[in-house]
């Protein structure tokens, strides 16, 4: 059995969470609230220490921003902080709309390059991967044909401008079948990874904590 207080703490917390499987109980509630507090505190520290101090305060105190030198740099550094402060106008009824400016900026930057990026990664690349010559020289070609048909019928299923009727409906139906085979396989495939995590925890309890297996 372990003599490390850290291992004991971790083991007790682990058991508290497993108790949730039986039903909601004070032990789980305790761990739930503890984890929320600790993780929120963790992120607060990381954000203040790194985002605020390293990327904002340090260059400001030095009066020099490496990315953009000179006064312009300092302005470009203070500007987002000013926008951030505007978020607090939300607490006033009269000025609440000002908080939209920073949000608009977050949306704009966040959405940023998503148009070309999603078209490139989700359309162009996938299309190219599907577009292979099919000459029936090998069994793999049958698979490639199947993938091409699956992609087409799947897209038909996601087509919203036409009701799923007739031949079109038939294609959509094949599409949903293929989607379901895909979902089933993903589900089945994931079981192993999840069980591995459980084995990891059980081994932690039995080996690191209790020492009953070697």
């Amino acid at each position, binding site marked *: 059995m372990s003599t490390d207080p850290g291992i004991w703490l971790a083991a007790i917390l682990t058991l508290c969470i497993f108790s949730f499987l039986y039903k909601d109980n004070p032990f789980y*509630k305790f761990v*739930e609230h503890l*984890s929320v507090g600790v993780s*929120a505190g963790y992120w607060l520290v990381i954000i203040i220490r790194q985002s605020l101090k390293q990327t904002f305060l340090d260059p400001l105190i030095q009066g020099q921003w490496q990315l953009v030198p000179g006064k312009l740099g300092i302005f470009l550094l203070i500007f987002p902080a000013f926008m951030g402060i505007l978020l607090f106008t939300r607490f006033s009824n009269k000025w609440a709309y000002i908080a939209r400016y920073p*949000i608009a900026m977050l*949306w704009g930057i966040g959405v940023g390059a998503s148009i070309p990026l999603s078209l490139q990664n989700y359309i162009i690349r996938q299309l190219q991967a599907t*577009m292979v*010559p099919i000459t029936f020289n090998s069994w793999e070609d049958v698979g490639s044909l199947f993938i*091409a048909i699956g992609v087409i019928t799947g897209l038909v299923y996601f087509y919203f401008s036409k009701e799923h009727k007739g031949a079109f409906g038939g294609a959509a139906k094949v599409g949903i079948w293929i989607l379901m085979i895909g979902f089933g396989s993903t589900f089945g495939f994931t079981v192993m990874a999840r069980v591995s995590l459980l084995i990891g925890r059980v081994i932690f309890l039995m080996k690191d904590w209790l020492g009953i297996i070697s």
Partner: protein
Amino acid sequence: MLDGIKNLPIVFLLSIIIIFPIQAIAGEGQTKSKLPNLTIEKVMDTPNDHGRSITIIWKKPSFDSSFAIPTGYKILRADSLRSNFDSVEFVPIGKSKSFDIQNIEDGKTYYYRIGYANTEIISNIAGPVQAKGNWFHTGKTTTFVVTILFCALTLGILIFARRGGELYIRPISGINAIDDAIGRATEMGKPILFVPGLGAASDVATIAAFTILEHIAKITAEYKTRIIVPCYAPETMIVAQEVVRASYLDAGRPDLYNDKEIFFITQEQFPYTAAVNGIMLRDRPAANFFLGKFYAESLMLAETGFEAGAIQIAGTDEAIQIPFFVAACDYTLMGEELYAASAYLSKDPMKLATLKAEDWGKAGVIIFLIIGVVVASVFGSDFFIRLLDVNVM
């Protein structure tokens, strides 16, 4: 002596005559003479970069395997033909036959040679060359064209819709379930839980979730049903509060809006999940909405919600998580359906128009795919396949 192609054979002969005996004498352990010559094929400004880099390409030597192979190449540089060539980089021997030399001053002229490390064998002189930043990434041309096409298509349909053009969109399954679920919660006098996922506020899945939240909040304002929105990211909380507040205002019930029901929990996946599980088991919402970006916690939330007896409607564009929602929830908006549902619910002709553009896009993809496969299979041409080449490096 070196200023004419005519003299080259003489130089060559001379070098053989002079170098060979020297090599033979130097002999012992040194295998220089057995190393193939090095030739720089091309030296140029590194394409598609931000500048300050030069690319050097050489002919890959084939080594005689019975002799020691050098550990690497050295790259030599000079400011002018008259100055000395100094070694600036070491490239280990490997598969590569090109190298990007970084941290070069833009616009300054250089000449290059390469040689085997620890030997005297060096290549021809290549240059002059200057580094500079590029204004268009040629590897992304396809992406650029597709982006322009898609934007033009969407704008065209938007203009059509604005002029009052009719746009038909089929009913999307699971959409009616949203209103039914809210109705049921109201009847039971229980709250509604809306989880906007783990994405940032500007993730498209989260944005779609906000639009659906807008729809839901308008109904809950009308029915005076309590709505709980626990948030993973602080920005998501801020936007969700704005969305709900605006919806309550729209519905004429700003008095019912409660900021504290839309709250931040923590920005760590599993503590967040633990807390949302707690809400489901203690506040007992009658309807759970999981809309947005979800990862491994999807199944944990959906299973706990099921145990708590709630009607559950999920939607995510995260392909790996869809199966778990399908298994554990009553309705699942799969992938694009999430975006479509948000457009459909808003009944805004502008939003429906973009949905229409997506459909055109799909039709285009299908047609292009069929053409590409047929051309490649029947005519053996990979023209359409190459057309889709994207090189982001």
